[in-house]
């Protein structure tokens, strides 16, 4: 097995490396944003970490540099990262993580609801389709409130 290492030299190794899923339908810049958020949630990234340099990401994924810049700008806009001139982009904020206790309560509610949906005759795909369509309603309500 071969292991690609992003950068040699322990001091400068980037804590995370991005990967792309071209079939996901999610725009490339958004995939990068989501992976940073996910890494923050899971503790792979903490405040003070340097994100991979634009040139490194570009060389690794063969993507347009503007895409990486757009993702990093979005992270700055969200208050999760900040650019330091000549040094790179660094993690600043943390994500508001929902406390574990609340997550468990929400999860119990969801499992109960899924039981009811199964009883009503929905299979897993049916449930997923219903959830996706409910998400769309939620987003539209949000968008309507904003405008």
């Amino acid at each position, binding site marked *: 097995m071969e292991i690609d290492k992003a950068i040699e030299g322990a001091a400068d190794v980037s804590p995370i490396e991005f990967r*792309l899923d*071209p079939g996901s*339908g999610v*725009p*490339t810049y958004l995939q990068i944003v989501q992976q940073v958020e996910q890494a923050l949630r899971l503790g792979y990234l903490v405040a003070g970490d340097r994100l991979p340099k*634009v*040139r490194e990401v*570009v*060389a*690794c*994924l*063969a*993507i*347009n*540099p*503007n*895409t990486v810049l757009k993702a990093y700008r979005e992270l700055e806009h969200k208050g999760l990262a900040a650019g330091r001139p000549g040094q790179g982009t660094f993690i600043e904020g943390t994500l508001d993580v929902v406390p574990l206790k609340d997550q468990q309560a929400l999860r119990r509610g969801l499992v109960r609801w899924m039981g009811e949906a199964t009883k009503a005759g929905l299979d897993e795909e049916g449930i997923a389709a219903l959830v996706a369509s409910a998400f769309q309603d939620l987003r539209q309500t949000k*968008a309507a409130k904003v*405008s």
Partner: protein
Amino acid sequence: MNTIETHRLGKRYGRNWALRDCTLAIPGGRVVALIGPNGAGKTTLLQLAVGLTASTRGEITVLDGIAPGSPEALNGIAFVAQDTPLYKYLSVADTLHLVSSLVDTWDGPHARARLGALGIPLDRKVGRLSGGQQAQVALAVALARHPRLLVLDEPVAELDPLARHDFMSTLMEAVATDGISVVFSSHVLSELERVCDYLVLLSRGRVQIAEATDDLMATHRVLTGPVEQSDGVAQALSVVHERRAGRHTHLLVRTSNHLSVPPGWQDGPSNLEEIVLGYLRSPEASALAGPGSPTSDTAQAVWA
């Protein structure tokens, strides 16, 4: 700054027009994909831009108003032709030496460092390198001239997936570090989305799309709904292409504002491949940046 600007440009070979009435303004600092079916005029347009051929009609300028083929244009533009032609019996080192004697601007250490990093032996004959390595040699030669604009004709068509990825990452790294503008032709649609930020679609010698990819994605939606309502809904919108089935239909729609979807219809984003295919299947539709773009300001009238 515009890297390539044309006005009613036309090129005729014998009785056939390879390019007709082509009006374009390709902005600088971009990675531009020039796409279209075989015979659409891609190679002709690129050859006109680098000064390898002269136009029959109309005008073309490069790098902000310079005539193609003039000394200034030749210095500012590097061109990698289709199938990356190189002298097969020269070694890599001799190839670099040859080019260095032919051009004004040459950064030899740059080229050798790039090839060294890729593990390409300088003493090897070019013909004994793999296809991917030969393409990398051609790219290194082009980049060592520090061009403002790099033009590539079908650079990755013949390469295997790994070589294609390596070639594109070298190219994108050069864009990131040197800020060069790139125009490349391709007919591989699936890989464009991650590489290019501006798209020009030629079909049958005419320009069908010339727009930033972000704008293209933001202004195209797919509406899916019952086929019997299709005509009514389509009437109020600027429909690029319709795929109609027995009961439902998919409308690829160009819109500048937020669509409020009629009841019973689904509205979703499109992707670059679907947009391009939609335009190719509807040769009369066009999406050109700037004023005069088709919009659907009356979209809400029907079901509001």
